[in-house]
């Protein structure tokens, strides 16, 4: 997809945003579980919800819903796909 991509940090995650995993740091502690849950280089996901206090976030990945703390996505390199505000409104 040739949509405008920009590098994201987990802090930038907002409801409705679409993002893609561009790379992973396998050596980091939490990474193996994220891999097993299907967050791999190239995987796209959508942020479906952000908890009341800003963390954790809920994402729609591979057709299921997963909650993650923002701090736990540290081993994922994320890029944003164009914002699709389909959930808001």
């Amino acid at each position, binding site marked *: 997809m040739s949509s405008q991509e920009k590098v994201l940090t987990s802090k930038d995650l907002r409801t409705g945003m679409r993002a893609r995993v561009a790379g992973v740091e396998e050596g980091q*502690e939490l990474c*193996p579980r994220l891999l*097993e849950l299907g967050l791999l280089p190239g995987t796209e996901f959508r942020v479906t919800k952000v908890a009341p206090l800003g963390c*954790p976030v*809920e994402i729609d990945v*591979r057709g299921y819903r997963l909650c*993650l703390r923002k701090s736990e996505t540290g081993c994922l390199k994320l890029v944003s796909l164009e914002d699709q505000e389909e959930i808001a409104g």
Partner: protein
Amino acid sequence: MVETSAKKRVALVGNPNAGKTSLFNALTGLHQKTGNYPGVTVEKSEGECQLTFQKVDVVDVPGLYSLTPVSTDEEVATSVLLDEGADLVVYVLDGSNIERNLFLFSQLADHDLNVVVALTMTDILMRSGGDFDIARLSTLLGVEVVPVIPHKGIGIPELKEAMERAIEDPHTLELDVGFPKVVMDAADRLADHMNRRGIALGLREARCVLLDEHCTTADRFRDLPEHIAAIEEERKAVLGASGQGRTLDAQARYAWAERVRKESILPPQNKKRSKSEIADAFLTHRVFGLLFFLGLMYLVFQSIYTFAAPLMDLIEAGKTALANWVSPMLESTPMVQSLVVDGVIEGVGSVFVFLPQIVILFFFIAVLEGTGYLARAAFLMDKLLGWCGLNGRAFIPLLSSFACAIPGVMAARVMPDQRSRLLTVLVAPLMSCSARLPVYLLLIGAIIEPKYGPAWAGFALFAMHFVGLIVAIPIVFILNRKISKGRRLPFMLELPKYQWPKWRDVFLTLTSRSKVFLQTAGTIIFAMSVLIWALLTFPQAKPGTYQKEYEALSVERQSQISEDEFAELRQREDSALGRFGRTIEPVFAPAGFDWRITTAILAAFPAREVVVPAMGILFGTGADVDEGSPKMVQSMQKATWPDGRPLMTVWSSISLMVFFALCCQCMATLAAVKRETNSWKWAAFSFGYMTTLAYIFSVVINQIGLAVSK
């Protein structure tokens, strides 16, 4: 040696919340707990299932995301699968989330297992406009696939037939996930290299060694430096400098899973937001989410208070009728009459009365667990709990502890790190379990409601359930600093789709829970009632012993209490239990408890429900009981200190309720803490800290009360 006659063993394996336990129940006819959130099952459980030609043992295990366990419940499951072994694995595959569910399936193929697939949740898939192709799926997976809807019994006979076929004619699962050619070539070379040197290494094992340094096969080479070089060389050839073997492994598996999904499943067609999403937009909303949670809890306790009243009256009436019916028959032997009427019927009956409320509480908890709301609550609470050092996932065991702390303590197994797990185990008993409910209801009904009315009474019940939760927060905060730091693992929680609770499952939970409650009433409460009655009746004073004492009382006091009542009261005080209680009384007097309450509290240490019959028997019955409210309530309202001050004020009853909210009066919970932490030290610690807290809080509350009401 293979024993052919032995019963075959079937393991139910799959992702968390895939429907394993539902299927287990359908196959065995047992009633293990199910619920719509990941991590319901934390232990293995076994049952028997009758196939056409044989009986087999079925084992249900906790859910797994992969064969590399990170928490205790996952270790239980992998050890059943890989160490204990099974003649057949029924892989429970969630049809509404097939891609991720296939990841674990692909790992099974590395372990020479005989597999049949049970495809669940197809009703959910169909309802949202999706569809599936069983024949295609079966071809792609290389095993039989049977669609089932366990709680409705759909597909169960077909699954049993498939199980029987697979047991009679076992095949090992073979799967070509399609690892990249470079990987397979390197694995080939490595296997060859080892085999030529007399070390047996299969292709699959070689692949595992290449892609994952933590692979169990890799351990074999740890002490063989001459081979490590060969392994490293091939590893470099495959992975390059990055060395990201596990990523490569997962990518290959997920690519395969995606292909299988695309070829066999038609995804949901409804592009509109599902009902689940709409509900969630509200239930986990920034503002409404938390308000809804509090509102819901308030509703629960208010309704426990109001809905149960008529039922309670009915049981109360039954108890009185029974006493009135039995009493005349035993007229000739007053001692037996007193034992049966004042001891057994009063004691056991006083607890029985609270069955309706407990059933209502369990109903609400079962509904919360069945809908999937519990996982949302954990999502909402993670940040709050995170501040005091607990994982948001702890909220699930903690909420379950409102029913009973024992499953709550066990559910802490899902916590991904040992420290969070220990913290959760230690504070779960602080949550207000259903056994505390009768105490609250008794005191609120006797003291708070007559004064402030039913609306406040309901609120008081609601508030009492938060005492433990609120006290738990600073406790965790403090413990968190004291307990040595362990590995910290993530929150990572899957949110299942909302479902209607399975009413049959809810009903079964209620009946089994009621049975446990009645069993306690019939055994421990019965025994304690008889014991308390006996210790309170003996030694018997001769008639007329207390006449002089009564005459010496002030006129004012005499107007409050008749001579008979006074004699009965004094007789109790001079009984074995009375003397004992009065010795201890000074310890609890600052909390506003006299010797009777003190004795009741002490009697309740094995199981806190005992306090209700204990108080019933200890407070006894005045001669002039009005009709209407239970005699026990009336005698509590009338009870006084020796100087005539009322014993049960609003403050002292709050003090007593808080004592029960915080105190650890449950042997079974302590045993569970011991089992789960593997040390008596932590059980003793739980007991110590909770009892100390309870004492301090109740003294403070009562002293405030005394100061305020001066």
